């Protein structure tokens, strides 16, 4: 019995969020005031889980017959997901009211999608990877179309659903082949036999199918078709979480599944694959984003480009690149959530106020928001001293150490290209004559709070990047 409780304590973050899902359904059923209770309840659950994870980083190990692992970098991921979700809920509170009707299931689905992400990050077995992936994806399909009366949302949801489950098909078939050749679903065993297995063509095929499935989820180049449409069509706050939490969860799985590559125990047979998707995603994302006038769509293309930068780390495949990718994910999460949070506040009802021209003169209408938006844009484009710069720096350094200098140079080139469209937003906000009929931006305390917290984190990780990177490195075996 003692053992049971110890094991539950070890995976308590998962238990907390699962209980949160359960209780939020009960609240939604039982209370007429659930509209007021649920948002704050979910913020409470997310913050509690996040804090618990941060304070228990040193309690490392695996639980439930090597199904899940806890502590260390897994808990860093847990607290990242939960913090991101808490910020998303904060900016959703006012945003959801723009739809005119109340959807209680919104918060329930957010909670369960975060549970899915956590299962993915903590997984040590292909079972858990699959269940977490599906829990997250199915919730996102629904969240994308949460405003079911609007055609845009319907379309985004349908596209995401069809392509997302297409990717699931690849993952399942890949897992089948991996299981058939490795004779197990335990990632621990697969990783330790990776070197000998990678001579088996069937195993490599299975692994490639698996990686293709996850390339859909991280929104990398040849598998990116859904990204712009889905980010544009779904609710802005949801796009924020999909592009940050969803991407981070998919990357966490890739880091685990390729675990043998990073300490150098096995040759990185997938290097050409990752190098190709990295190069194409960076350039494609940065170049196409230039021609976008819709801010959500622009950020969607920038999200493809950022997936490319992170994939450089996967191609490099050394210890530095793991730390680099994780740092990048943390930085990207907060700067992108901040940018989406501001877009959600500026956005009017019925998908208005999303174009670049609607941001003309924002510096006079709302100085705080435009200053923060400028900060996020600087960070996204990778200018120092913000967190985005160090994310790119660590990943590029790891690529140079792995003799992939050409990839690092390509990364720098596409970062330079991307500066153009990020800074264009700032130019529109500050240096263009405002139009008189511009829509006002309403103050909303919770949304501003979320954006300010993200901004503080972006600046903090930009000024003290060493703390986080040392922490992550210390947990790498």
């Amino acid at each position, binding site marked *: 019995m003692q053992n049971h409780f110890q094991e539950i304590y070890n995976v308590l973050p998962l238990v907390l969020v699962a209980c949160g899902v*359960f209780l939020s*359904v*009960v609240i*939604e*059923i039982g209370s007429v005031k659930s509209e007021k209770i649920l948002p704050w309840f979910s913020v409470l659950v997310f913050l509690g889980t996040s804090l618990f994870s941060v304070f228990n980083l040193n309690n490392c190990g695996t639980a439930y017959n090597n199904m899940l692992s806890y502590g260390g970098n897994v808990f860093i991921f847990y607290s990242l997901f939960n913090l991101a979700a808490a910020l998303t809920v904060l900016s959703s509170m006012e945003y959801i009211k723009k739809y005119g009707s109340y959807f209680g299931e919104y918060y329930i689905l957010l909670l369960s999608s975060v549970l899915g992400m956590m299962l993915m990050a903590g997984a040590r077995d292909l079972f858990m990877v699959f269940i977490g992936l599906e829990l997250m994806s199915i919730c996102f399909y629904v969240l994308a179309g949460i405003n079911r009366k609007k055609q845009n949302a319907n379309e985004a949801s349908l596209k995401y659903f069809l392509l997302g489950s297409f990717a699931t098909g690849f993952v399942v078939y890949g897992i089948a082949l991996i299981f058939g050749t490795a004779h197990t679903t335990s990632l621990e065993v697969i990783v330790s036999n990776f070197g000998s297995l990678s001579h088996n063509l069937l195993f490599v095929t299975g692994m490639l199918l698996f990686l293709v499935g996850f390339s859909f989820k991280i929104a990398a180049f040849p598998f990116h078709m859904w990204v712009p449409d889905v980010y544009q069509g779904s609710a802005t706050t949801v796009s924020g979480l999909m592009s940050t939490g969803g991407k981070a969860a998919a990357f966490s799985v890739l880091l685990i599944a390729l675990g043998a590559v990073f300490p150098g125990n096995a040759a990185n047979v997938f290097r050409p694959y990752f190098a190709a998707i990295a190069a194409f995603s960076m350039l494609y994302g940065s170049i196409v984003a230039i021609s976008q006038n819709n801010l959500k769509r622009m950020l969607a293309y920038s999200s493809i480009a950022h997936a490319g930068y992170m994939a450089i780390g996967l191609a490099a495949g050394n210890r530095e690149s793991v730390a680099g990718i994780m740092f990048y994910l943390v930085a990207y999460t907060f700067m992108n959530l901040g940018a989406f949070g501001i877009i959600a506040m500026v956005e009017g009802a019925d998908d208005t106020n999303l174009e670049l021209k609607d941001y003309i003169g924002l510096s006079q209408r709302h100085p705080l928001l435009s200053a923060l938006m400028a900060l996020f844009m600087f960070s996204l484009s990778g200018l120092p001293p913000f967190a985005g710069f160090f994310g790119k720096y660590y990943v590029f350094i790891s690529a140079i150490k792995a003799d992939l200098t050409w990839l690092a140079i390509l990364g720098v080139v596409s970062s330079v290209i991307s500066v153009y469209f990020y800074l264009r937003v700032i130019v529109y906000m500050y240096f263009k004559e405002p139009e008189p009929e511009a829509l006002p931006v309403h103050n909303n305390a919770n949304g501003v709070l979320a954006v300010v917290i993200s901004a503080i984190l972006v600046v903090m990780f930009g000024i003290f990047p060493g703390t986080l990177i040392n922490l992550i490195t210390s947990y790498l075996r």
Partner: protein
Amino acid sequence: MIEQYIPIFLVIGVSVVFSMAVIASSKLFGPQRPDSEKLSTYESGMKPVGGVRERISIKYYLVAMLFIVFDIEVIFVYPWGVEFKKLLGEQGISALVPMIIFLVVLELGYLYVYKKGGLKWD
């Protein structure tokens, strides 16, 4: 390898030939006096009503969706049921706990559907 399948092909061939022969012989030799009563659809004695290609109310889809979810979840009860005696011997009464949690979560989903009016017909 292939010769193992010869009996199967034989059976297929015989059954095709036999059934065609029966139908053909009844057409050839039997008396044929069709009337409207005989040609209408056979519905076990009931009078046939309407066509088969009618559009169905969208409400059925909701029920169908809910049915799929709750029906498939039962799949998890079977392996547990098969192993239950063994589990009971090993863990005692606490073998029931995981299944109770599972069923409670499932029932909560049902309750949610009920409360949200998913089962209302009109």
